[in-house]
């Protein structure tokens, strides 16, 4: 039933690590690893289709990013941007012209060679009028894409963009001869698409002709479960080797106390957000927002939803973003202060508001918790349960809401607060300026400093309520190693996974 919408991020890049080939997953060489193994991965996110510019959803990134398709750059599991299909690039002094050199001897799975025109075609696909890519707007400042020769791509910008390489890590390079990318693939990655059985599984097969280091396993099968319990049961009965992200802590004890399994607690980028409509009263009053922040015992909430897992971060920026800092002390839990702030704001007796709550976990539980917490300071919450579809229409498109709950999954998405037209309507010119300036920074240090400053202002303003950062829990059979732990942007690089007999 549940359907998630990926919240798009206007990414802002930092450290370009100029390593040759990407290595993301942790150490993999286990004793007796079988290089011809089939790895079965259990996931809740089946792709809707196979194209990440046509509403394929979170599952399409998970299965195909880095596995079947590669970009000019790769976003590693640690959140770093490294070279992918681009072997090198130069930036002009004015920062407006980027020249990319492509890796040599790269072939698509169909056998066609990778050329600059394929790259131009692929970037244009994302920028196209009909593209449904959430990344589309990040290329608004691209003026021209030129292909002087087969292995060189020149991108000219209208304004400086330090995060261009980061943004390009989201662009799949595909063969311009591929007809229908929603049902077929032609990428350059270490795997070819095997079979996709809708409603059940999608398999990837090692490409023997891969240009880089070949995958360490022969076949990867993503098996899809609409139900978290069924997913855990599959792991318990050895029907899958790995579960990409466990959605509730309840099932974890049965794996923790069992030598056959390993529970990994990684960093996610998914934030549970209490988003106010900052345009409307009383939420246009900063003191009201600060009061609500101070009225909620987030530690208790996190414990009741996730037990011992998850992190409190006090802002919208997760630890895997380069501009992260711990802001838990800003508007920290203090019911007395909350009451005082409310009185100060002109609501000594509190007020009432409706909380639009998506009907899938954990939002209904979180809503109940907020209701009882806020009742203690005199605020009455009416919970209005809506479907993901209604959320999209009512809250996101029509802005017809007072407050809502939503999980924001993306990496580097603080930039949403720089857009006054975004659904939560946070409008602070200083923040907008800082975020705009950060994008035209010359160095990553400058970019990081600007975004840190912006984030502190946003946190002080209590622009939204940042309840907690989801844990990223990967549970795997103990004979399996080399899988990614952090699940940044829902990617799940499978090529380093090995299984010992």
């Amino acid at each position, binding site marked *: *039933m*549940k359907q998630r919408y990926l919240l798009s991020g206007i990414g802002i890049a930092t450290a370009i690590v100029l390593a040759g080939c990407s290595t993301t997953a942790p150490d993999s060489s286990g004793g007796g690893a079988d290089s011809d193994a089939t790895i079965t991965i259990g996931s809740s996110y089946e792709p809707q289709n196979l194209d990440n510019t046509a509403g394929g959803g979170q599952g399409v990134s998970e299965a195909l990013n880095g596995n079947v398709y590669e970009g000019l750059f790769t976003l590693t599991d640690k959140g770093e941007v490294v070279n992918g299909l681009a072997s090198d690039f130069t930036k002009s002094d004015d920062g407006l012209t980027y020249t990319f050199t492509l890796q040599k001897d790269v072939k698509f799975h169909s056998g066609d060679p990778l050329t600059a025109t394929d790259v131009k075609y692929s970037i244009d696909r994302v920028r196209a009028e009909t593209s449904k890519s959430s990344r589309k707007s990040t290329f608004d400042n691209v003026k021209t894409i030129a292909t002087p020769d087969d292995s060189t791509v020149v991108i000219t910008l209208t304004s400086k963009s330090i995060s261009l390489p980061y943004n390009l890590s989201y662009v799949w390079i595909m063969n311009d001869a591929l007809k229908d990318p929603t049902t077929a693939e032609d990428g350059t990655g270490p795997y070819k698409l095997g079979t996709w059985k809708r409603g059940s599984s999608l398999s990837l097969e090692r490409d023997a002709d891969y240009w880089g280091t070949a995958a360490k396993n022969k076949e990867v099968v993503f098996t899809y479960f609409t139900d*978290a*319990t069924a997913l*855990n049961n599959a792991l318990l009965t050895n029907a899958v080797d790995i579960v990409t992200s466990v959605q*509730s802590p*309840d*099932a974890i*004890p*049965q794996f923790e106390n069992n030598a056959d399994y390993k529970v990994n607690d990684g960093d996610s980028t998914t934030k549970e957000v209490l988003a106010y409509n900052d345009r409307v009263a009383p939420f246009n009053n900063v003191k009201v927002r600060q009061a609500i922040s101070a009225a909620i015992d987030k530690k208790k909430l996190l414990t*009741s*939803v996730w*037990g011992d897992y998850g992190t409190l971060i006090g802002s919208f920026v997760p630890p895997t973003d380069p501009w992260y800092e711990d802001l838990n002390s800003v508007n920290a839990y203090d019911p007395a202060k909350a009451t005082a702030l409310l009185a100060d704001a002109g609501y000594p007796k509190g007020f009432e508001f409706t909380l639009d709550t998506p*009907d899938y976990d954990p939002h*209904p*539980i979180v809503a*109940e*918790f907020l*209701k*009882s917490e806020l009742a203690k300071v005199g605020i009455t919450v009416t*919970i209005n*349960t809506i*479907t993901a579809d*209604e959320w999209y229409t009512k809250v996101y498109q029509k802005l017809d809401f007072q407050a809502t709950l939503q999980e924001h999954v993306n990496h580097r998405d603080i930039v949403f607060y720089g857009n006054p037209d975004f659904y939560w309507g946070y409008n602070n010119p200083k923040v907008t300026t800082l975020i705009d300036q950060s994008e035209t920074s010359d160095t990553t240090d400058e970019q990081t400093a600007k975004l840190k400053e912006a984030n502190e202002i946003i946190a002080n303003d209590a622009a939204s309520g940042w309840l907690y950062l989801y844990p990223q829990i990967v549970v795997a059979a103990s004979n399996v190693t080399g899988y990614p732990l952090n699940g940044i942007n829902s990617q799940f690089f499978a090529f380093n996974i090995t299984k010992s007999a």
Partner: protein
Amino acid sequence: MTAVVALEAITTATRRRRSWTLVVGLVLFGLVLATAIVSLFWLPYDPADTAGSRLEPPSLAHWAGTDRLGRDLATQLMIGARIALAVGIGSVAIGAVIGITLGLVAAFAGRVLDDGVSAFLDILIAFPTLLLAMLIVAAQGASLWSAVLAIGLAMSAIIARLTRILAKRILALDYITASRTSGTGMWGIIWQHLLPNVWPTILVNLALQFGLSVIAEASLSYLGLGAPPPNSSWGRMLKEAEGTVLTAPIGAIAPGIAIVILVLGLNLIADGLRDIGDPLRRVSARAVPAPTTEGPR
């Protein structure tokens, strides 16, 4: 001759056991009803109270343990009784009103309208309750009311068909024809002859449908199409406890038992009523008599 005696003994035994079933049925149903009534005035805990530790086994403080958020399960079970009864009563009311009206209209109407209604009912019945309910819930949005409406509408087709068949059968009897020719109006016929004769059978079926609607609601909730949280319907509780069936089995067992108690009670009541209403006729369990075995319409 001994064989005949034996057969009669079997029949008598069956009958005696059946009145016993009515008593057991009433006790089981009464148990659930009492729980629901008590829940209106008193609950062990606030249903939203997450003060307990998570997934506790049953104890003196929490008779049925706690759920994954530390909420008291006994409290939720009690509220669940209220929801199950509300769904049952609501959908039975909808099913009875629409179904009986439609059935009578078809029975009295001319051939064309009758055929039309019957064909339509056949199609509706071809969709099982759950499927129809899924579509309606999808259209209306998941809520308790949607579930009640959906189950009630699906049920009304079954009741309508039953009413029509029974009414036609009675209308064809000689004394009704006599009564009609002597000038009794349509309402008179319905009131004096039809309803009193049709009612016992309909009542039995409504009791059975009540039970089926409880199961249908539980299934809808299980599929995520029932009342959204925080309404702790039994089906929803089962869904939520499914993942902890090994570590905290009580949560995945107690709501199931509650459903069985209520539905079993209703089925036994239906059996008992059938016996009292019409001890000679034994209609098979899940209700509608098979029209194909009764010759042409």
